[in-house]
């Protein structure tokens, strides 16, 4: 995992205790994602990576996994994200 993915994993690990989250693991299928996490996740992505999540980015697939969030960050900041590893 690159630094972006490590930071995303660290943030999500607060909500997925005792679970070693894999980069491409579907966080929705783990059952801990709810509206409390949703806005915190948006705020985290914006503050941590200096990007703005907009209405057009509201797609569950953009937030489905560490890799997906990393891809979103890369797109928003104009860089390419590394593949899951």
């Amino acid at each position: 995992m690159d630094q972006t993915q490590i930071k995303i994993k660290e943030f999500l690990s607060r909500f997925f205790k005792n679970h070693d989250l894999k980069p491409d693991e579907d966080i929705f299928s783990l059952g801990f994602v709810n509206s409390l996490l949703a806005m915190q996740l948006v705020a985290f992505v914006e503050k941590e990576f200096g990007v703005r999540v907009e209405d057009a980015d509201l797609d569950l697939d953009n937030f489905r996994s560490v890799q997906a969030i990393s891809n979103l960050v890369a797109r928003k900041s104009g860089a390419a994200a590394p593949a899951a590893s």
Partner: protein
Amino acid sequence: MNLELTAEQRRARDDFRAFVAAEIAPHAGRWDREEALPPALVRRLAERGYLGTVVPKDLGGPGMDMITYGILTEELGRGCSSTRSLLTVHDMVCQAIVRWGSRAQKETLLPRLVSGEIVGAFALSEPGAGSDAKGIATTAEPDGDAYVLTGRKRWITFAQIADLFLVFTQCEGKPTAFLLERDTPGLAIEPIRGLLGTRASMLGEMAIDRCRVPADNLVGRIGFGVSHVVAAALEQGRYSVACGSVGIAQAALDASLSYSRERAQFDKPIFDHQLIRALLTDMIVQVRAARLLCYRAGWMRETGDPLAFAETMAAKYYASTVAARAATDAVQIHGANGCSEAFPVERLFRDAKVMEIIEGSTQIQQMVMPRFEFPDF
């Protein structure tokens, strides 16, 4: 760590306080009895730059920092909770558009909301859905390049005068937000009167009978109405209600200090009775604690901290309970006078109770907060 307000924030506080003392507080009791705010007040608030303060400068707003915004709502809440609630719901709509509105919505609506040309209202609650936002029954059916909205909304603050409603629906079976203009055919609004508190908040019930809105009125995306649009608006609302609650508690404390020094029983001011001092001490400490929680939440919101959502909820939970307790004790200190509308604490008592219910009841927050990951100290 520096917990002091900046010189600019102190100046703003003095400004807000002088305005409220001159133009709001003297009329609050009458507005409460009349169950309405005067139309000129919206214009006056807009002239002062108090509407849509959450709108950033690059979107045509004043871009007020969150601490100053908190001070503004505290000072308004100290003078008149109904006036504070106008800002609360108006700014919730502004915040939802700032956060999740389309570029066109931002460009066309935000300047009009900031100028007070239009008043916004937040239409979530229904006869059968309150705390459980996902239980809303109002529907939005696609129809060509539009959606047809049908349902009922109840307890909508300032529905009697609002021009633009942020309405939450089920669209394709998923929570979805739309903007609904007042003059849309099929929309009827019935005033709700006889409320316990914030009686001048001009609540209404909306009958939405096949109201056709353009597809461009969708806010965010289908399915994100609760998780993102409601969440963003309610975080704004909770912060406003938290700070407004501090204002109520401070007003209760001010009135109690003043009254207890004037009122004599057993040959001395009641201020000199130990049990009264105990009540005053609790009020002093709790008001200060609630204000600090608000400032912390405001600071975290200002800096975009992901945990601001949880901290704002904590501030609202505590400040609203403090307001209710302080207003109850203020009535107790005032005795029979506190039960009369001739004394403002009677209104504060009624208004404070409302704060424990709106923008997430105390019990909902007790259910939710233990699930947050609060940072360790």
